[in-house]
């Protein structure tokens, strides 16, 4: 009898487990029901014209006020008071003011925690409505393949001024699934005052960069601070060199990742050049374990003369917490050209990374799309982001130049507008997420000399296959 009870209990447990395993069909049913319910009310609202948006917003607010809507947003912008998080929150507040029936609930987690939680959400049934996504195959391919994201109507955005190519990363097989927040480009931030004081010049060639590293080290300073713990900055640094050897290489790199063929001599040369720079002491001692904050603080506290990071850090120039000696003296330059390479300094590594998408199974999908469309009206995200010196949107923001931009902002704008070629998604993000992990690990190992350039190429090829 005792035995029976126990075995019954165990059996019950198994049943529970099985139920949990085999539930996906039930979930799909539920969601398709939800879809059916919504489909009636979806069409009209999508075609928002940028020009009359405020009026439209208020109309809708009046019309729909009887029916309260709660939109759940899952964001990777944890800082809601400055930077992109501030812009996001401002737009949400604005939207809620214009549409009193809408409440927006934000859950924000840092990148790493965000990706973990995203997965948990994806495996359950309660996906938030508007989510942050990265317009890179390494993140988006799997998410789209699982049908988690709702397709957006491309015609909606004809007037939004998205730069050509900026939606590519968010599209798959001709269908659009998300909108990019900004245009990202990697650069060396440098401290003009320190450079002037020591008579250092912005390097014009890669050899000069290495020489500069030696000169700065000789003065007892850190030449360039690098966020090595996150690994992707190292990968992008490598991509940056490759770009400076090959020139317009977007298609070449794509082919290499998809076929696993990295035999082009440029890849090995770039690997050697990166190791040369590390040997020349370009990065701080222990850069491979320095996290983002530490690397940035070395620069903002004047201990490092340069900082290799993306354009989203342009807001350092108006960050009150950074001392004016550094804040007012920030300049930028791009990865210098490599002798013998075919590229010019205007062949740059730039891409559209973070952005938003609406989830397919959202109960308020159309409301979420409306919110998304509202956010990216040119006079919203693009304008507010630019005026606050936060980042360059992926849209044409030429109309919003105020004349009060920081020199860093203007320099970045100049770099983008005069670019001869743009890489798009960098190599580490071109494969699946496993390739991303492996290639970024490899880049870090290459940088600290744990693998030789030959091994790096061989293992990179293995990882791509």
């Amino acid at each position, binding site marked *: 009898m*005792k*035995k029976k009870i*126990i075995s019954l209990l165990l059996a019950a447990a198994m049943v*529970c487990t099985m*139920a*949990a395993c085999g*539930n996906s069909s039930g979930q799909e049913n539920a969601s398709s029901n939800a879809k059916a319910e919504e489909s009636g009310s979806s069409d009209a609202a999508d075609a928002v014209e940028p020009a009359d948006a405020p009026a439209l917003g208020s109309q809708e607010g009046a019309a729909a006020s009887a029916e309260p809507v709660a939109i*759940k947003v*899952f964001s990777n*912008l*944890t*800082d*809601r*008071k400055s930077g992109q*998080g501030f812009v996001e929150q401002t737009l949400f507040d604005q939207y809620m003011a214009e549409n009193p029936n809408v409440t927006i*609930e934000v*859950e*924000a*987690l*840092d990148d790493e*925690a965000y990706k*973990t*939680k995203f*997965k*948990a959400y994806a*495996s*359950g*049934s*309660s996906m*938030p409505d508007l989510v942050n996504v990265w317009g890179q195959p390494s993140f988006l391919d799997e998410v789209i393949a699982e049908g988690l994201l709702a397709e957006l109507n491309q015609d909606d955005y004809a007037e939004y001024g998205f730069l050509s190519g900026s939606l590519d990363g968010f599209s798959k097989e001709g269908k659009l699934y998300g909108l990019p927040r900004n245009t990202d480009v990697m650069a060396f931030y440098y401290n003009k005052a320190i450079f002037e004081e020591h008579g250092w010049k912005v390097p014009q060639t890669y050899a000069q960069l290495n020489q500069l590293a030696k000169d700065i080290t000789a003065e007892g300073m850190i030449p360039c601070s690098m966020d090595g713990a996150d690994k992707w900055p190292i990968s992008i640094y490598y991509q940056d060199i490759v770009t400076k050897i090959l020139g317009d290489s977007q298609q070449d790199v794509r082919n290499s990742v998809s076929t696993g063929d990295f035999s082009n001599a440029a890849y090995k040369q770039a690997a050697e050049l990166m190791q040369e720079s590390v040997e020349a002491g370009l990065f701080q001692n222990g850069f491979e374990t320095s996290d*983002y*904050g530490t690397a*940035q*603080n*070395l620069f*903002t*506290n004047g*201990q490092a003369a340069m900082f290799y990071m993306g354009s989203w850090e342009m807001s350092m120039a108006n*960050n009150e*917490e*950074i*001392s004016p000696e550094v804040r007012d003296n920030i300049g930028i330059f791009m990865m210098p050209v490599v002798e013998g390479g075919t590229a010019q300094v205007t062949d740059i590594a730039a891409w559209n990374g973070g952005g938003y998408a609406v989830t397919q199974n959202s109960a308020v999908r159309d409301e979420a799309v409306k919110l998304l469309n509202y956010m990216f009206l040119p006079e919203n995200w693009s304008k507010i982001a630019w005026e606050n010196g936060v980042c360059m949107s992926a849209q044409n923001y030429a109309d919003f130049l105020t004349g009060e931009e920081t020199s860093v902002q203007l320099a970045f704008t100049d770099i983008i507008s005069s670019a001869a070629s743009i890489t798009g998604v960098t190599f580490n993000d071109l494969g699946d997420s496993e390739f991303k992990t492996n290639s970024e690990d490899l880049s870090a190992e290459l940088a600290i000399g744990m693998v030789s350039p030959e091994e790096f190429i061989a293992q990179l090829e293995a990882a791509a296959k």
Partner: protein
Amino acid sequence: MNQVEQKFTWKRALLYACLLLVAVVQIFPLIWLVDFSLGSSNEMFTNGLLIIPEKIRWDNYVTAFVDGHFLHYLKNSILVNVTAVVFVIAISILAAFAVTRMKWKLQGFVKTLLLMGMMIPIHATLLPNYVIYDKLGLTDSFWALLIPYVAFSLPQGLFLTCSFMDSIPKELEEAAIMDGCSIYRIIGTVITPLMKSSMATVAIMTFLNNWNEFMMASTYLSSNKWKTLPFSILEFTGQYSSNYAVQFAVMALTAMPAVVVYVLLNKYITKGVAMGAVKG
């Protein structure tokens, strides 16, 4: 052991010096934390380990207290942890009685099964558990935290309770049975009062296991309603990524309740543990 031994010798001085050194090493994190939390971020990158802040910045704590939702999260933390402790203790005593005192065929097997929980890495269960809670509609609720917290502290609690119960002589309860007491009454009135010290240990262990836990919390919760103290830290590292000093203030602030409780109750806690938690 007696006064004679307490007299000064060089050997003794050396011993004290060593112990003090270890003490400094152990308490250093706390000093460091409080020290940096009172400065400004720029001061952190000096070449000393401790700093003398140019100006003591209490406002770091004000920011931490207000923006970190300190009171709200503290309330949740206390609620979840206290409930978890109560559940762990109660379930441990019941189950321990069943597997150490009662006579049934599967008792050995069930005991081993329950103790096996000790060997399970919580990270392996993160996603499956999410799937299960999601099915049961428990995500983002009080239960989503309580269940795993109880479940992962239970094996250790049971283990200690069992070993302690083994050391309680059976005569007492046998006498009670003669008087016609039911098993439930025996557990309630005879056994439990004898288990105070083991309950204290189980309580501390459970508390320490869960007080700073954030992996499960951040996976199972999404709204602010039930978020616990570690979220203050988690949210701050993003929100004030360039302002280390404020981050440190929030860490000091969240560490404080546990440290204060520990220092105040230290005597009782150790006594509780000492009275016989580990009977082997």
